[in-house]
């Protein structure tokens, strides 16, 4: 305020035009930041609306024709794409076209469930090893290596899964498991033909490997935030490190771990390329045992969109939109759930000192 008053300004510091421009910029800079920031942050909102609206419009004919049966039917018949057409509910479809998404939904949920069951304990164990077991000078590079795993392109993980891991498991691991497993519920699914390494369990393992870095690095950061005093107190009471982990460290950050797990679940549900490569991509089939070939919603979209485009009535493309909408709804629900869980946990430790 004082410097802008001509009477108090040093005569040498005259109000030149460049100085006037500088003052103009400084005065209006905040407005520029505000307007551009607001405009930019409206774009993700708009993009999301655009995606959902396009999906809904494209899926509407398929929703009308397929009805609720889409969720439970196991048929995947493109119909006679060169011959006659039928009219169902005012929608033109190729004669004999029937679509059902139950195998895709089941495959998506099964692979993601396997991935979470494997990834969650391994992630917690890894985070614990990184924070409590390894000395710091080696824990940092190893932790960085785990983070790198999160950045490896999924197509490379799929390539490794189908060329290296799958054959190894089918040749050296699965037969041993399949021949020795007792005939009791749940474990029964581990018996039977082991196939060639492309299938449900391999997909689940590959997905697990992909989401471990997400959960493990978040959990490690959470473990580092646990204050040392409660842990030392528990140790002073005579607890073993296993008991300290189970009764102090993990409960301290439980909701954060759950949030990271649900985020990993979201990634597993939507993962496309790696699963398309290692699942065997068999349409309309539910795996008879854990080694069976199958497919997921995302893998079906990527492998079928090419041939769906040859359907002159556009019904196949519309059906894929319905499948995509289904996947989008699942992943949105999972994401909001994670947000809710993480949000509730972060409210408990409110950040202090920020206006």
């Amino acid at each position, binding site marked *: 305020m004082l410097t802008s008053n001509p009477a108090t300004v040093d005569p040498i510091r005259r109000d030149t035009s460049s100085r006037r421009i500088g003052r103009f910029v*400084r005065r*209006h*800079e*905040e407005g520029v*930041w*505000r307007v*551009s*920031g*607001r405009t*930019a942050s409206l774009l*993700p*909102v708009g*993009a*999301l609306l*655009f*995606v959902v609206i396009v*999906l809904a419009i494209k899926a509407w004919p398929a929703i009308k024709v397929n009805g609720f049966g889409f969720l439970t039917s196991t048929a995947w018949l493109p119909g006679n794409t060169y011959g006659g057409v039928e009219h169902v509910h005012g929608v033109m479809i190729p004669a004999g076209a029937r679509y059902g998404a139950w195998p895709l939904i089941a495959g998506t949920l099964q692979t993601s469930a396997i991935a979470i069951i494997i990834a969650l304990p*391994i*992630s917690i*164990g890894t985070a*614990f*090893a990184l924070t*409590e*077991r*390894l*000395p710091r000078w080696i824990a940092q590079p*190893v932790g960085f*290596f*785990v983070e*790198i*795993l999160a950045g*490896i*392109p999924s*197509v*490379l993980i799929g*390539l*490794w899964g189908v060329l*290296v891991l799958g054959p190894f498991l089918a040749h050296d691991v699965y037969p041993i498991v399949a021949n020795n497993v007792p005939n009791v519920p749940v474990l029964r699914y581990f018996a039977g033909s082991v196939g060639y390494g492309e299938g449900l369990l391999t997909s689940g393992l590959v997905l697990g490997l992909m989401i471990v870095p997400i959960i*493990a690095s978040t959990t490690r950061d959470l473990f580092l935030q646990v204050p040392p005093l409660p*842990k030392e107190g528990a*140790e002073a009471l005579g607890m*073993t*490190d*296993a008991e*300290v982990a189970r009764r102090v460290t993990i409960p301290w950050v439980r909701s954060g771990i759950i949030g990271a797990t649900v*985020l990993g679940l*979201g990634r597993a549900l*939507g993962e*496309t390329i790696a699963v398309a490569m290692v699942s065997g991509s068999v349409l309309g089939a539910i795996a008879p045992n854990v080694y069976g070939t199958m497919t997921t919603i*995302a893998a079906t*979209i990527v492998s079928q969109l090419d041939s769906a485009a040859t359907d002159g009535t556009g019904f196949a493309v519309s059906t894929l939109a319905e499948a*995509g909408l289904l*996947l*989008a709804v699942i992943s*949105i629900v*999972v*994401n909001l759930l994670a*947000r809710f869980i993480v949000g509730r946990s972060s409210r408990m430790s409110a950040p202090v000192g*920020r*206006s």
Partner: protein
Amino acid sequence: MSIITTGYPKTGWRRAKAAGFRVFTWGSLLFVVGPALWLIIGVVVRAVPNWRWNVLTTMSQGTSGGLANAIVGTAVLMLGVLVIAGTVGVLTGIHLSEFAVSRRGRASGATMRIAVDVLSGFPSIVLGYVGYVALCVGLHWGFSLLPALIILSMMVVPYIAKSTESALRQVPTNYREGAEALGMSTGYALRKVVVKSALPGIVTGLLIALSIAGGETAPLLYTAGVTNNLPTWSILHHPIAYLTYYVWTDWNQPSAEAHIVSFDASLILVVMVLVLLIVARVIVARTQRHAEGAR
């Protein structure tokens, strides 16, 4: 590291549980690091024996030839993502951190945060499908650069926005108060003090976003198409090649030549991602050291 490790119980069950827990933590670390090493080494040992340097300079002929068109194509895609998603993401992050925290901006800020969160978890193939249906077919753009860039940007804007927001939030309150005490206008202080000191975090986010964009396959398959030629200057109606396409299609072609192309592309991708992530890490480590030194 826990200091007290001598006070172990003599009774069997608790002792066994502690030992089991120890085995479990080391084992899970092994189960993460082992496959990761196996993966990277597996790609390298398959690509290196057949590596020819002219892969970098010759064009692809589908399942044989070089990868120059794909390398340039991936570089163009990453540059485009850096421009589009970088601008939108950084500005979104600034808005969420600086302006959407006031009482007036909080409601709209919550909507934007939810949109960013949902978009970051959105299945990439569904985004690719929408790009194909709405942009390539609906707007008659064909397989080309612009729809690919738009879809890729939708994928990585959330990452950039989140990392920018958290980098800005880590700027100490003292800096802002100091800038205000010196009489800086809010906008000037934002540019000269807040954004400047958060710059390493922002750049790290951008590098990670670039590595994601360069390694994506699903959203590009039905938006970018593929071509044996170098990218042209036209952003519509001309398909563009990218590295991940050759990994995805050539590994199960019958010819050995195609497998070599696939592994060469894999090796280039691995090196690219490692370089980007290590540079990002070095930036973080350097700034952390400086921050600790200043305290």
